[in-house]
């Protein structure tokens, strides 16, 4: 069954592996064109892996991920921050201009029209006048706005955001959420990994609740109910083998954190003294 013309991404029984272990399995469903979906779940639920799979960076170990009718804009994907070199000597406007990659590629020239588009994108994220600043001088919130400006320039039909609001101040959060809603109004298909369920309830019509397999997928008010959240948390506890012995923790996702496997103790640098005998 290939997707109907009303769908942007179709997933059929998808299993995605990370580090050799299945991070998601048996995921079937579709993101309809123009939908705005929040992707939520406990830590380790495979949300980032799902994003990478949908962006085409990870091939499914099983099943099929199909994109339909993406047009010239392609897919715009915003990863979690880990790999970006924050101190790199590059300016804000140069970063935003990278959004034109599909039009300029390795060595294509940047004409005035493309440059003006980039400046307009900067204005719309509230960073007018920041064009020449080196990115190292920006705060976390400002830098995130720059990345959103780059997404705007990419002008993609499908926008995938992996934790776009992590480590960002409240004001920037609100501004960026408004941008996301705007994309939705423009008819683009948007999916974003979110940790704040209130934001999901306030801004996102649809939600996919994930705990390595789909818990619920549909309208947000039907998905983010206590029953589903409890079920997701319960499923996440089984990942680390801990069960009822856990002390109750407030909030639906803290359990996910507590259920995360303990890191190995650091190797000692000195030979431990033996208890009895010579020291």
């Amino acid at each position, binding site marked *: 069954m290939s997707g109907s013309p009303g769908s942007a991404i179709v997933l059929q029984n998808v299993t995605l592996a990370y580090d050799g272990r299945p991070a998601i399995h048996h995921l079937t469903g579709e993101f309809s064109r123009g939908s705005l979906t929040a992707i939520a779940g406990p830590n380790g639920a495979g949300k980032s892996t799902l994003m990478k799979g949908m*962006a*085409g*960076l990870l091939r499914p170990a099983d099943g099929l991920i199909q994109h339909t009718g993406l047009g010239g804009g*392609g*897919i*715009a*994907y915003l*990863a979690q921050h880990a*790999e*970006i*070199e924050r101190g*790199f*000597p*590059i*300016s804000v406007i140069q*970063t935003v201009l*990278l959004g034109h*990659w*599909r039009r*300029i590629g*390795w*060595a294509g020239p940047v004409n005035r029209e493309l440059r003006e588009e980039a400046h307009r994108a900067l204005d719309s994220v509230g960073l007018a006048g920041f064009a020449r600043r*080196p990115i190292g001088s920006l705060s976390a919130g400002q830098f995130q706005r720059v990345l959103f400006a*780059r997404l705007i320039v990419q002008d993609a039909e499908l926008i995938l955001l992996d934790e776009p609001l992590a480590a960002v101040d409240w004001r920037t959060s609100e501004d960026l959420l408004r941008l996301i809603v705007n994309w939705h109004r423009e008819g683009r298909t948007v999916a974003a990994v979110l940790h704040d369920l209130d934001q999901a309830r306030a801004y996102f019509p649809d939600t996919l609740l994930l705990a390595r397999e789909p818990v619920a997928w549909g309208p947000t008010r039907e998905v983010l109910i206590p029953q589903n959240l409890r079920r997701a948390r319960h499923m996440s506890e089984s990942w680390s083998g801990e069960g009822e012995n856990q002390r109750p923790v407030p909030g639906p996702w803290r359990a996910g954190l507590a259920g995360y496997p303990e890191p190995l103790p650091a190797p000692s640098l000195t030979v431990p003294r033996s208890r009895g005998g010579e020291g």
Partner: protein
Amino acid sequence: MTLYDLAFGPFAEFGFMRRALVGCLALALGCGPIGTFLVIRRMSLMGDALSHAVLPGAALGFILGGLSLPAMSLGGVGAGLVVALLSGLVTRLTPLREDASFAAFYLISLALGVLLVSLHGSNVDLLHLLFGSILAIDDAALVLVGAVASVSLLSLAVIYRPLVVECFDPGFLRAVGGRGGLVHTGFLALVVLNLVAGFQALGTLMAVGLMMLPAAAARFWVRELWTLSVASSALAFASGFFGLVLSYHLGLPSGPSIVLVAGLAYLASVLCGPRDSMRALYFRSR
């Protein structure tokens, strides 16, 4: 003896000094941008390791063809590329990270090279390979160094944008299908090329000195990427010039003199450069 005589006399008088200077210019033009990218990509030590890795290739070329430039250069490039590719393979397929796998291969390579030379050559030859002989640079070597500089600059112009993005945001490059792996390999090839051009003049031990020291020093003068490259090239050439002058008047070997002058420039930059140097920090905290 005026300052003019001291500084320019040797070059006016002797052809070999002029050739050495031109060689330094060509080297500086290639090494400047490459060294800048190495520093920015935190590959400085890998550049050092690569320079040692070219030794057995050069040694093999030397054994098979004597002190022949094409033979040693070809061998050097081959060895450098093999080490780069093998360690890349090990990094990709095993849990061992790039620094450890590189270290392992370059050490094997270096030992192999020293072994080869000591078995088949005299100690003098080993010294030449390790420490270089810029004053013996002939026209053929000049052509090689010039060609390498030209190829490097042209290639960098083509891969500049993806190279920048690959350093800055490799995830983005992957997402837009920019072939980051190809760019990385291409960059490594350019590094090896410039190292081989450099070892004629400075020897395999210190060829990387003209790449790293000016690039590290330039950081304390300018900030933008392309100005860093220009500053690195300028500092590299200045080191070449003053190193040659110094070695001429004091009778010192020229390779180490050049690198030491570059080192002095680096120390001066760390201590009193205009941007973020010790002096700048001291005044900022007052």
